[in-house]
């Protein structure tokens, strides 16, 4: 009977193996994702994204404060959010009407297009002291266990690094207030212990990440 307990003597080696495992797993996930998304067409997504460009930018890098960038977001993330807008589980005066008439294929194509775009850090004015405090909070609140070590996102979990500061603040405050739309409740729970100051610090740190 094998158990996954490891001896502490080989901790460093284990970490390395862990890293290799993680990389292999990621490759497997990406491979599986691309197989599954064979129906998704990023080029069709580019055409379908034309009405989105006014707010989210032609390549998914938005410039309007408060509007999220979609470039580099994992396909599952964008697709699930669009489903939630269409179903009315996530509501936004500007966004909801756009999602209302999207088909499943439209969503898959849009998600594939935005995932293929290169994300750029938003020019939010980041407070250095808050960001420094935020770095420690990211570790304490296990953000990277779902959002990955550099908060680049994966699967249905959003890419956060370099996202717009105003948007990050609005969402984190929404999760804390239990009013932000949540796929399975994980973010709402994660936000409950955060103070208003800690939310500021987290947002400033995340907005400053490359």
């Amino acid at each position, binding site marked *: 009977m094998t*158990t996954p307990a490891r001896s*502490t003597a080989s901790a460093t080696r*284990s970490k390395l193996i862990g890293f290799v495992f993680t990389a292999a797993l990621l490759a497997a996930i990406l491979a599986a994702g691309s197989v*599954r998304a064979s*129906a998704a067409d990023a080029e069709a997504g580019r055409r379908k994204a034309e009405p989105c460009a006014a707010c989210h930018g032609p390549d998914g890098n938005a410039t309007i404060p408060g509007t999220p960038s979609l470039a580099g977001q994992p396909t599952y993330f964008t697709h699930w959010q669009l489903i939630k807008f269409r*179903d009315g589980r996530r509501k936004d005066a500007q966004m909801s009407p756009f999602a209302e008439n999207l088909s*499943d294929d439209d969503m898959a194509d849009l998600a594939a297009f935005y995932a293929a775009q290169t994300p750029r850090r938003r020019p939010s004015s980041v407070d250095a002291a808050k960001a420094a405090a935020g770095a420690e909070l990211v570790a304490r609140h296990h953000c990277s*266990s779902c959002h990955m070590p550099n908060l680049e996102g994966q699967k249905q979990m959003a890419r956060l690094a370099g996202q717009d500061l105003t948007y990050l603040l609005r969402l984190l405050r929404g999760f804390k207030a239990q009013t932000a739309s949540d796929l399975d409740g994980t973010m709402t729970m994660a936000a409950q212990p955060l103070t208003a100051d800690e939310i500021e610090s987290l947002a400033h740190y995340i907005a400053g990440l490359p």
Partner: protein
Amino acid sequence: MRRFVVIVLAVSLLGALTTWFIPAQAQQPAAPPTWKQGQPAELAGSPLAPIAQPPAPLPAAEIPVNKLKVPPGFRIELWASGINNARAMTWGDKGTLFVSSRVAGNVYAVVDKGGSREVKTIAKGLNLPNGVAFKDGTLYIAEVSKISKMEGIESKLDSPPQMVTVFETLPKDLPHGWKYLAFGPDGKLYFNIGAPCNICLPPDTHANISRINPDGTGFEYWAHGVRNSVGFDWHPVTKELYFTTHARDWLGEDVPSDRLDVAPKKGLHFGYPFCHQGDILDPEFGKGRACAEFAAPLLKTGPHIAGNGVEFYTGSMFPADYKNRMFLAQRGSWNRTQKIGFRVAMATLKAGDVPKYETFAEGWLQGDQPWGRPVYTKQMKDGSLLIADDYAGAIYRVSYSK
């Protein structure tokens, strides 16, 4: 029910007081996400994590149904597809199949049109609506903290009636908050209230199977110490309740086993969080306890195998020895490097002995890659068996001919 509300209030009050009197420790790590909770420090770098639910069903043409294997004489085919996150199934009086989902938030109606099936979404935007049950023309739907009904739904599939709340004082916790819902032979509605964690000492209001009258009155606990049961059925002859339970994570590759249990009477305790699989004390919560205090499992179904659906076979299409056998839909492991499950198993009861346990349908796992996850079964009127797959968003039909 009043007692239940009082307990809920008392627990919430206790929680509030605890927060009030114990000052927050600035340097103390916050609780990790539920799936990671209970992970030992030496496994902090483990790549194991839950399998993400795809946002869309697999197109019918991409479902490799030819990879599925059933015993000789049986045949498995794709019966319906395009049902995002298809989970539990229940039949309407007029032959409509109602299908639940979890994260997709939808409830569907599948109408058999002879050679093909039409899928209608009859409710959307719900809170993890995993439970569906039908009785006397009314569909009952269980979300995390409430149970609702749609009266006369089968004649109004294209303009579904408003959902009317039947019972809404259930805990709001999301971890293991989704429910399986079924009518017992006593005409009561049974459902689970899961532990709000991977491993913790849950409040008295959680980690159980409970029941109410269909009008929302008469709440009572039926079974205790059940971490999370999202599948149960009653023996066609003895009328006893059989149920599966998902065991805790991060205790090891091969332990603890998930379990199949029988609860012939009210009030039994099945061990969580003190004792797992009937013979392993929890390293933290098992101190000072003994497994002999609790009901032992009828069958250890396998570590992390994620047993959901339980259904006794009562039809006459399958061979005679299938009568009163249980079909166990096993959605498949994530907290294990060697994946297991991703199949429909069967258990045959043996008087005074461990049930015979074997594979019925498999092939959703190819190598280390699952392409589908069987989650519930539902017998058809003709004795064939439907299998719902929440990962591919599809329903398969298994039939038999000599």
